[in-house]
């Protein structure tokens, strides 16, 4: 009985990913922003004023990016998904304040760890390998285990492979990270685009509501 209830709950959670906008706009958009961010840092040089400003604004870039892609996903879903297969508003986490504070603390720790790693490894580009591993693990844990969306296995593996391959490529770090996020952005876009195409083929617009 519990399994049957859980199946329904899982199905409802998976509905968020049914149209591919999460990957196409969310993953693709966020990774594109980060690709431009790191490439710009490398372009302006390590000790330039712009690089300093970019480093200081990493948290703002992340938060602004999340806000922007969230708005874009909602707008896309309102236009494409809800008229075709219906509208769902997901429940807020029960301990919203606690989870918000925890997310902020984890986010700050991750940002500090990132900066620490960047400054520690000057010759071996472990930063891009760490980025690949972190994103691969997040995709694996968050998406595959909580929402059971199987295509995220491939994205998770892609993240690990890109990270490992680029860490020994010999490119400058900024371009390496830029390239990593650009590759991830393309991978998310392909995955999301194919999912969206399948979704649109299977779900023509409703003529009467």
């Amino acid at each position, binding site marked *: *009985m519990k399994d049957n209830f859980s199946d329904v*709950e899982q199905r*409802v*959670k998976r509905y968020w990913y049914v149209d591919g906008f999460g990957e196409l706009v969310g993953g693709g958009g966020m990774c594109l922003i980060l690709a431009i961010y790191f490439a710009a840092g490398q372009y302006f040089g390590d000790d330039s004023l712009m690089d300093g400003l970019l480093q200081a604004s990493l948290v703002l870039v992340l938060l602004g990016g999340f806000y922007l892609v969230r708005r874009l996903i909602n707008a896309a879903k*309102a236009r494409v998904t809800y008229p075709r*297969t*219906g509208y769902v*508003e997901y429940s807020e986490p029960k301990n919203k304040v606690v989870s918000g504070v925890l997310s902020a603390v984890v986010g700050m720790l991750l940002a500090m760890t990132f900066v620490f790693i960047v400054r520690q490894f000057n010759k071996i580009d472990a930063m891009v390998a760490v980025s690949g591993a972190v994103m691969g693990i997040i995709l694996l844990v968050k998406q595959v285990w909580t929402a059971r969306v199987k295509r995220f296995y491939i994205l998770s593996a892609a993240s690990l492979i890109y990270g490992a391959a680029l860490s020994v490529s010999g490119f400058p770090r900024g371009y390496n990270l830029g390239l990593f996020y650009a590759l991830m952005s393309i991978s998310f876009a392909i995955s999301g685009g194919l999912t969206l195409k399948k979704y649109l083929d299977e779900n023509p617009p409703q003529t009467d*509501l």
Partner: protein
Amino acid sequence: MANDLRAVTTLDRLIHEPARLLIITILSSVASADFLYLQRETGLTKGNLSAHLSKLEEAGYVKIEKTFKGKLPLTVCKLTLTGQKALKAYRQQVKEFMEMTS
């Protein structure tokens, strides 16, 4: 034992009906869902779904609101606190019955 088993006869029949159980279970997993989503997920016809939702609304288990999402008209359904408690009690009763009979 027999008395315990008889407890199954006190199951909330409003929820026990399969279509309504499915509707309530779906609504328990979200903050709200619209008519189209429920129709697709349950596989019920519009008339059937409408009838079941009306019964659940009359019992105070579901709240139905006509609203808009942008320019899109939506009939949004939400499980009330009473509905949440009723589902929780129902699940508990079924679980106990299954444990006693397995």
